């Protein structure tokens, strides 16, 4: 019954590698980008907040599938390149969407640290920058951990959507195998288990990390 | 001398106890044993104060009386009926037992008046108009007739606790349970709540009170029960317990209180 995985191992291994690569790149880009935008929106004053809020809100209002399709099919026409590599399109689409959500988490985390903490820091003679890096950011970072963890989990699950623009990730390869082998049950069920385990590992790791530091985030 | 100090008026009158804890034990689901063979009686019209250090099981005991915690062994007799028997309707027992909580536990989504009226409306199926009339009457009794329309969060702690007492009274219970009713209050608000409780006691309400207010226990209680580690240490009239504690553990407990507050109510 599980022969199918051996028979098509080449496709599956490629798919697995592409899925892992895609997610690794997206996590790095979206966390870095989201942090940058979140910090800028929190500390940047009204104009920065409103201007950067526009792309964030657009990305949060449109389905990821539509973002991916637009980036893959339509954006080359805007930039006159005619073609974009599906993997690159998937990285862009996923990172933009994930980054938008993460920027909101970062902004909310910074805002959740009570202003009395800032005052306490200033009262000790710290500069504004020191207050941010020594007092506010560490607490905010700990509080952001759980929601960022959930968002990363969402990103892993959503990476299956890259199959729609023919990125040879795990789900796409599986569909090819199903078409060829006519064994949807085994393949799709195993895939379910795979994603379940992957997501659980990520969630549990972040949980463990969080419980170790949680007390330091509650002022 | 000791004899006269130890006279229990209500018990002497020969009345049946209203509430009787007869060797009850209790353990929490996590295995923590909180009560071990605890026995004491509450007679009609009596004020019984439960004293003891933190974690001694006072709250658990009082929740057992209200059947909010299931006893694992022993008998709990309420108005002559063994309510630990299988076929007893807990809800019917709770309708006749009022309870006041340390943190008030008013319902934050209801007006003060509705908080007081909700028990009769939902549990006793009283007509709304009648329940609200009673609620207004009881709010007046606790000195808050002008606060009926506000939300609990707009009241001070002392006011909230007085509303909570009115809410419990609205069920016209046969006995009132108080679990540290003044512990969550700022010192200046303790008095107004104790005054309401004292008035209730004078009207003849049967009360079981967990408290750290030694002066209240001394002056209002008819009977004092001292607990430690889920067991009864000793019981007696307040005069006897405060002036001639027999057990070393009672003396130790009073000694600690004295260190903290610097006061013990003497005669």
């Amino acid at each position, binding site marked *: 019954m599980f022969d199918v995985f051996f028979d098509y191992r080449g496709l599956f291994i490629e798919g697995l590698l592409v899925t892992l690569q895609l997610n690794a790149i997206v996590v790095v880009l979206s966390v870095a980008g989201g942090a940058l935008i979140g910090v800028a929106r929190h500390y940047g004053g009204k104009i920065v907040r409103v201007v950067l809020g526009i792309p964030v809100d657009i990305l949060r209002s449109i389905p990821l599938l539509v*973002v991916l399709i637009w980036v893959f099919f339509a954006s080359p026409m805007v930039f006159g390149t005619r073609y974009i590599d599906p993997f690159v399109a998937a990285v862009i689409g996923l990172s933009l969407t994930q980054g938008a959500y993460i920027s909101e988490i970062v902004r909310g985390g910074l805002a959740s640290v009570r202003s009395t903490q800032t005052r306490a820091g200033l009262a000790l003679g710290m500069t504004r920058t020191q207050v941010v890096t020594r007092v506010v950011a560490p607490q905010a970072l700990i509080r952001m951990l759980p929601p960022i963890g959930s968002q990363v989990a969402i990103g892993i699950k959503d990476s299956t959507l890259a199959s729609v623009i023919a990125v040879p990730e795990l789900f796409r390869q599986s569909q090819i195998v199903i078409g060829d082998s006519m064994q949807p049950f085994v393949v799709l069920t195993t895939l379910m288990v795979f994603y379940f385990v992957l997501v659980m590992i990520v969630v549990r790791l972040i949980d463990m990390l969080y419980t170790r530091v949680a007390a330091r985030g509650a002022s | 001398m000791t004899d006269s100090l130890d006279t229990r008026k209500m018990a002497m009158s020969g009345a049946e106890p209203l509430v009787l804890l007869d060797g009850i034990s209790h353990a929490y689901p996590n295995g923590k044993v909180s009560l071990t063979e605890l026995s004491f009686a509450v007679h009609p019209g009596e004020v019984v104060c439960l004293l003891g250090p933190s974690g001694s099981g006072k709250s658990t005991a009082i929740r057992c009386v209200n059947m909010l915690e299931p006893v694992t062994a022993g008998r709990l007799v309420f108005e002559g009926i063994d309510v630990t028997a299988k076929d007893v309707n807990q809800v019917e027992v709770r309708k006749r037992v009022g309870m006041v909580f340390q943190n008030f536990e008013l319902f934050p989504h209801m007006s003060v008046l509705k908080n007081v009226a909700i028990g009769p409306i939902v549990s006793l199926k009283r007509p709304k108009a009648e329940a609200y009339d009673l609620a207004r009457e009881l709010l007046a009794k606790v000195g808050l007739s002008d606060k009926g329309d506000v939300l609990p969060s707009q009241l001070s702690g002392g006011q909230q606790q007085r509303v909570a007492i009115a809410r*419990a009274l609205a069920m016209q219970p046969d006995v009132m349970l108080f679990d540290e009713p003044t512990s969550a209050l700022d010192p200046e608000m303790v008095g107004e709540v104790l005054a309401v409780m004292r008035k209730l006691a004078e009207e003849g309400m049967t009360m079981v009170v967990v408290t750290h207010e030694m002066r209240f226990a001394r002056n209002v209680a008819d009977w004092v029960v001292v607990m430690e580690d889920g067991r009864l240490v000793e019981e007696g009239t307040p005069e006897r317990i405060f002036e001639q504690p027999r057990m070393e553990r009672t003396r130790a407990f009073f000694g600690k209180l004295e260190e903290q507050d610097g006061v013990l109510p003497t005669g």
Partner: protein
Amino acid sequence: MIARTVGFEWDAFGSSFAPLLEGAVMTVVLTVVVMLLSVPIGVGLALLRLSRHKVVRAIATGWVEVWRATPVLLQLFWVFYVLPALTGITLSPFLVAIVAFTGHVSAFLSETFRAGIASIRPQQRQAALSLGMTPAQSFIVVVGPQAWWRILPAFANTWVSLFKDTALVSTIAVADISYIGLQLRQETFMTLEVLTAMALMYLALGYPQAKLADWLERRFGVKE
């Protein structure tokens, strides 16, 4: 792909909206039907997860975890391909979408409901019980109404996610906005115009929902 050199065809862009609007009806119907089914099922699952019986609790929790931790696209395909093979029942693509999304959304809602109920401190329930209420009455009169305001923001976010996730039904040929957009693109070759119109369609519908959810979060969300 047909190469085009000149700019944006406004006519093609403008005429995309009428067919896309038909797709929007399907998108909205899917969202509303799935939500109507998921709320009662989610409440049921939440109550099972708060059950006193260990086995019931474990099974309900496992069911919910599986639906929450696997990709919804995979769930859609699983219901599409595997359910007929297992049960012999073949559902129309529309019903496949309803079943898969209801499984998905009810699992998320059950977690929201469970957490909302658990966030009300147990003394509130005890206070209700001590007034002689039955367990059911204390839930309906005291715990439920308080939990509702805690639940509302997360509920709104789940709603918005569902609205966007329904775009996946285009992969099994249910004629929603994205399916019609992709069809239109193939027929007209006006890729940029059609796909931009499609994105704007989603934006017009999704933006107010997202903003409403944000507002609910600010207004009722638990702080600290």
